[in-house]
């Protein structure tokens, strides 16, 4: 039931996606276009999936140093369905609320997925940011110690989610920089 409004999306689905994500209708339709271009032809968009490599090579994520972590956090069982892509775009959109962004940022930055951002994670983050071995070992250790001494409030050498949230809430740049435009229109 329901005629097709544009390409293959039903308008009830469009309404639902618009109610459950922070994206506008136009943006959802644009992402739908991009998704259809990438997925194998002939399949219904709700059943098609994209691999992590395909999503990593989207223009919005191509140069991001954390693209593998982003793909890992937002995919299910190693593949992206259309709803996974929408969920990812919603978290990175401009209208998303700070708590949602902070939650996913924590998951992205937790490289070893132990529920904390520890020294090893911090060092990996810094090396990814700089993308080179220009930083000497002791400078890396210095920086890690500075970050921990500033944000680690209960002195266990790791950042729990609450401490990360507290540090990000103090920084107004976080909301500004944690934004990606996925739609090409």
């Amino acid at each position, binding site marked *: 039931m329901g005629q097709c409004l544009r390409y293959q999306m039903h308008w009830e689905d469009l309404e639902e996606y618009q109610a459950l994500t922070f994206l506008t209708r136009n943006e959802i339709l644009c992402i739908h276009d991009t998704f259809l271009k990438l997925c194998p032809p002939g399949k219904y968009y709700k059943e098609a999936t994209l691999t992590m490599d395909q999503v990593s090579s989207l223009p919005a994520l191509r140069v991001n140093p954390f693209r593998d972590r982003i793909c890992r956090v937002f995919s299910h069982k190693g593949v992206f369905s259309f709803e996974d892509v929408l969920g990812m775009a919603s978290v*990175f959109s401009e209208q998303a609320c700070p708590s949602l962004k902070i939650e996913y940022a924590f998951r992205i*930055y937790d490289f070893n997925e132990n*529920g904390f951002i520890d020294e090893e994670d911090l060092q990996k983050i810094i090396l990814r*940011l700089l993308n080179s071995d220009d930083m000497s070992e002791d400078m890396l250790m210095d920086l890690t110690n500075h970050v921990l001494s500033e*944000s680690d409030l209960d002195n266990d050498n790791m950042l729990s989610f609450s401490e990360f949230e507290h540090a990000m809430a*103090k920084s107004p740049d*976080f909301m*500004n920089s944690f934004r*990606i435009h996925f739609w090409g229109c």
Partner: protein
Amino acid sequence: MAQPLAFILDVPETPGDQGQDPSPYDESEVHDSFQQLIQEQSRCAAQEGLELQQREREATGSGQQTLWRPEGTQSTATLRILASMPSRTIGRSRGAIISQYYNRTVQLRRRSSRPLLGNFVRSARPSLRLYDLELDPMAREEEEKQSLLVKELQSLAVAQRDHMLRGMPLSLAEKRSLREKSRTLRGKWRGQPGSGGVCSCCGQLRYACVLALHSLGLALLSALQALTPWRYALKRIGGQFGSSVLSYFLFLKTLLAFNALLLLLLVAFITGPQVAFPPALLGPVPVCTGLELLTGAGCFTHTVMYYGHYSNATLNQPCGSPLDGSQCTPRAGGLPYNMPLAYLSTVGVSFFVTCITLVYSMAHSFGESYRVGSTSGIHAITVFCSWDYKVTQKRASRLQQDNIRTRLKELLAEWQLRQSPRSVCGTLRQAAVLGLVWLLCLGTALGCAVAVHVFSEFMIQSPEAAGQEAALLVLPLVVGLLNLGAPYLCRVLAALEPHDSPVLEVYVAICRNLILKLAILGTLCYHWLDHRVGVLQGQCWEDFVGQELYRFLVMDFVLMLLDTLFGELVWRIISEKKLKRRRKPEFDIARNVLELIYGQTLTWLGVLFSPLLPAVQIIKLLLVFYVKKTSLLANCQAPRRPWLASHMSTIFLTLLCFPAFLGAAVFLCYAVWQVKPSSTCGPFRTLDTMYEAGRVWVRHLETAGPRVSWLPWVHRYLVENTFFVFLVSALLLAVIYLNIQVVRGQRKVICLLKEQISNEGEDKIFLINKLHSIYERKEREERSRVGTTEEAVAPSALLTDEQDA
């Protein structure tokens, strides 16, 4: 609501632990075992733990407690407990998220009298979050938690429910299932297809109408978005150059909005009525040559563009009382329109509205970009927030990496510098050099102001320049060149300064540039309001000032074009072809923003004398946008200096408000209250000051009747009386003082809370160590018991063997 916590520590025990050994929650044994532990620890600590702690203490560089992690022998029970710690499960498991949101909806429903910790959108403390569910003796399964959450969601309003679902960190498929489950029965019935023959026909027709309306709505939406042609351009700029360059273009858009608002008010209340009732023209109309676009004089002079054209009488006066000798041309059913009053009050109201809007947007931007205690934590912020995810180009991302590396190195260097104190001699020398450079820059600004003063005096005195129209352009040209050249000189002088903090360097450069521009503008304003008024007695000096400001605006635009052409395009060609460098010229954000602020100041200064000047500024800003965008995309690269994008919009708005708008307001007030308007043109030609128009009207009202008598009363006691102004200022100061004290108190509370968290962290480490040592001891006892039973079995086997034998 505070109930005593029931701690039931449900520790999953290893299979060998069934009931034989004292369990940690058996109190008397706990005391004993802790005593034993302490004794054991004091014996063994010298060998194992102390070594380890010393090693770790050296590594962390502080004498705090550390987690005791001897190699290899981690007890599985300890690990299991550690893995289910509340702070570890937050942000990871679906169960924790669902229970967290269940608690939130429950609290929302109960509207607890105890204040919620923090905002609704921020998370609560861990111990309170899992208070209701996880510490219950009957721990519930995930499906039960989900059904509880669904029940809570059903009790919320639809909009609230959607808002909550949107903010949940779950996948979209799970959100859809939650939404589906929480839809009420009423909603379900709406979705069902209608039954019956006639009903189905109506239903289908209604459905088709709704569908058509939806597609029409979508088409309109996309058309509206296509009308804002800047969305795609801004997205491209953000993707290629990052947020800092984008903030310049967003500031340009803000200025456009301010000018559009100003223009709307002026056209609606001043220009419109004057165009509808044009006054009688005196003398022949001069012919239009092309020079008017630059000078603003010539055929533009006697139009609605300038002050002189506006009549000083009441427009559309009914023919009964020809008071001012104006022409008697009544329209049928038209209202009389008091032009002088309208002119004064419209300019006043538009300035007031601009002031309120500016202060509000500045406060809003400040509130978003500054936090209490945000100056600490700069390393964490740089590591986590400095990568701009918007950037999509490879070259721009490489530039960002370079920027971040430079910034991190600078931070480390600053910290090291702070650690090593400098000698008194060095500090004195640094202060002396700093003072000298500041003195030189201020001297430059003063020199430019004096030069402008001397030159403008010369232009008044020289008779041959007075005749030619093109000579009017010389002063704006000179001022524009000074504005362009002097900042370069200041930058050269600043190279002599010691570079401690590069961010501070940029702010100091902006400050100096601003002082220069203010000095020049101040000289010009003094020159216009004092000398020109004196020289042009008997002529229309307001027209002249309006035209001067128009010329300054146009010349500023022309020089900006030339600067973009030579500073960016030609420089890039030279550096690529001749010098063979790959680096493109940088886009200097500070200088460009100050140019925009300067142009806007000129507009505000000229609004009183030329009501259509905002229209000229709007056209100029549109052209500037396209020129700068094209030049940026073709010739420039992003600046190497790290700019905090969130602070920048606040700084730009503050600079726009305080020196620029305040100066223009002061100029306006002086012109309205103190200067005698010219007697041959304009709406105030018969009055002593422009403000008199308001007083005249109030006197009219006093004789008008009892119904409007409150207005003269308000005027006499609130506007003319200074006591009211003092009272309002005193109240404002009191409010500011209270706010400062509140912030100071909040800082103290933050310190105390940080201490408390650090204490709790130490407690946690202590307890983990103790737990670990308990399990270690159990395992050791287990191993030793197994060893002794084996030994007991072996001799008894020997005994039986012997007995048998």
